[in-house]
């Protein structure tokens, strides 16, 4: 029976590669597999999704998985982001993995989720064992492989194939394999019930009628409304001001690409956290170490300006 897995991540985290690792691992084990990303405007930090289908025979499906057996969420902030639609088609029978430092119970208490929940803090594992954050594709792929019941060896081999395809050096691949297999072994398993029923009711059509091109063409007359779109979820780290150290030099304001830093009357920066993408340019460029990077939701200072 077909098993279906939907991955959610942010551009640059490796959701697409994770879906490929899972697909390749299943293929190595003799299954028919199909993996595909949602292509489009994904940018580093923007919500992305990818899909893997695994079956013993030919797969007569394509594209989006509306009701997956397993949802793998590489970035917990996506749960709150309606645009990411991570909870689409999730019900009591869906297995859900979230990359989070919280336990399933803690997360459940914080954000009630349907489905059988399991968590592991992949970001911290990656930061501790691979140095910087960034792509956690091998880790996510390994966890998914474990949850759908693929073998350790095939997951390890799939990681090697997919990361080599991305041009990673052999040493990096080995490091990734080791850390990923550690995640494979650590993640608390939940049952993944294959063959989630896909919606089959006939669609109710509503064919649009003509309207004036003021609305009926790809036109935006609401000026500068991008402000309505928050990008806070893109951050792994947030810049935080240490007011005593700030010399009011304006450099953070000058260099911020997104214009999310404004200068108050007293020449102190005010950061618009709803839109800061966490690039850390301000932290890097602050000459007095008055801006520090704090891990989101952790509260501890991770690193300071050079």
């Amino acid at each position, binding site marked *: 029976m077909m098993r279906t897995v939907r991955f959610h991540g942010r*551009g*640059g985290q490796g959701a697409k590669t994770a879906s490929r690792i899972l697909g390749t691992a299943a293929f190595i084990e003799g299954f028919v597999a199909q993996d595909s990303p949602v292509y489009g*405007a994904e*940018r*580093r*930090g*923007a919500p992305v999704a990818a899909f893997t289908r695994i079956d013993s025979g030919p797969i007569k499906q394509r594209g989006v998985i509306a009701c997956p057996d397993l949802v793998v969420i590489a970035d917990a902030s996506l749960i709150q982001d309606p645009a990411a639609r991570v909870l689409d088609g999730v019900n009591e029978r869906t297995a859900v993995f979230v990359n989070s430092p919280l336990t399933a119970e803690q997360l459940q208490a914080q954000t009630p989720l349907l489905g059988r929940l399991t968590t592991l803090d992949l970001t911290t594992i990656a930061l501790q064992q691979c140095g*910087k954050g960034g792509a956690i594709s091998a880790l996510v792929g390994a966890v998914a492989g474990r949850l759908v019941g693929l073998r350790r060896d095939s997951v390890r081999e799939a990681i090697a194939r997919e990361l080599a395809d991305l*041009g990673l050096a052999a040493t990096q691949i080995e490091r990734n394999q080791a850390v990923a297999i550690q995640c494979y072994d650590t993640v608390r398993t939940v049952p993944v019930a294959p063959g989630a029923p896909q919606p089959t009711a006939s669609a109710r059509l509503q064919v649009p009628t003509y309207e004036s091109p003021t609305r009926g063409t*790809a036109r*935006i007359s*609401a*000026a*500068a*409304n*991008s*402000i*309505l*779109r*928050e*990008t806070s979820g*893109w951050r792994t780290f947030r810049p935080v001001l240490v007011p005593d150290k700030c010399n009011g*030099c*304006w*450099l953070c*304001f*000058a*260099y*911020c*690409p*997104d*214009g*999310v830093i*404004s*200068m108050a009357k007293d*020449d102190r920066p005010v950061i*618009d956290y709803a*839109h800061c*993408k*966490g*690039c*850390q*340019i301000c*932290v*890097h*460029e602050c000459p007095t170490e008055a801006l520090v990077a704090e891990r989101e939701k952790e509260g501890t200072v991770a690193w300071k300006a050079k």
Partner: protein
Amino acid sequence: MWQRETFKKIKQIPREEHVLPGTALCAGCGGLEALRLAAKVLGDEVVYVNAAGCFTMLAAYPFTPFKGSWLYTTMGSAPAGAQGVRDALDVLIAKGRLPERENLKVVVLGGDGSTYDMALSSTSGAITRKLDFYYFCYDNEAYGNTGMQLSPATPYGARTTTSPCSLQHPSGATREKKDIFEIWRAHKPPYIATVAPRYPLDLEEKFARAATFTGPKLFLALSACPTGWLYDPGETPEVAKLAVETGLWPLKEAINGAVTHTYIPKPKPVEEYLKLQGRFRHLFEPVVQTEAIAHIQERVNAYWEQVEKTEKAV
């Protein structure tokens, strides 16, 4: 000696934002950093005419970051779109159908892929016709929106997804970056400048100067790209700084064809710039590509020797 006349202190950078946040551009985008600064001088009475590229994502239905207007054209013809908008505004104002106070500046936005190759015909045409417009090229030295393929702006030695390193070509891209500045200059427009957002006062000054000219005003903005150049997004200003300080990205302007370098670096070795970026990592490991690095250095040296000769002579 070139001196800034309007923008002398950093606190003169206007506080008001004209490109608002909430766009889908990558965290740490050097191109957006440059555009944001440029827009502080350009203001809101602008219609941006966009060519296909990363900046396509700036205005994506139903959101726009601009208080001004926007028209998305094609990869090859944004300057022609600017021509149509400019001419129509002029005609409508002349015929009294549009009050003069409704007039707008017309600003083309194009990446290097569009600017250096596909839109070269339409750019050449627009400059030749003395179109009164701004051209803002965000140069991230590859086709970025499609995932970093070789463009004519890719510098010698850089690895892109279509200039991979191989045993035959261990140094990546094997041909030199096209000199679009000189191609533009051959058309003798009133104003051309290179800018780097790490030098915001230089950038603001140049946009302020350009505003005094009627006709084509062309800007080439170094747009360091963490996604494609493979460095940490927080290092965007550092990368831009080293591009300038190693002499690889000269800051200059050309007024009616006469070139002035607006900043003369005390040149650092090019390795300092190259080493910071994953797209040049193969020049240093597993074996150091000494010849390739020396080649890059020699070309920089030759450039600045020429600058010294010509600009001293003036």
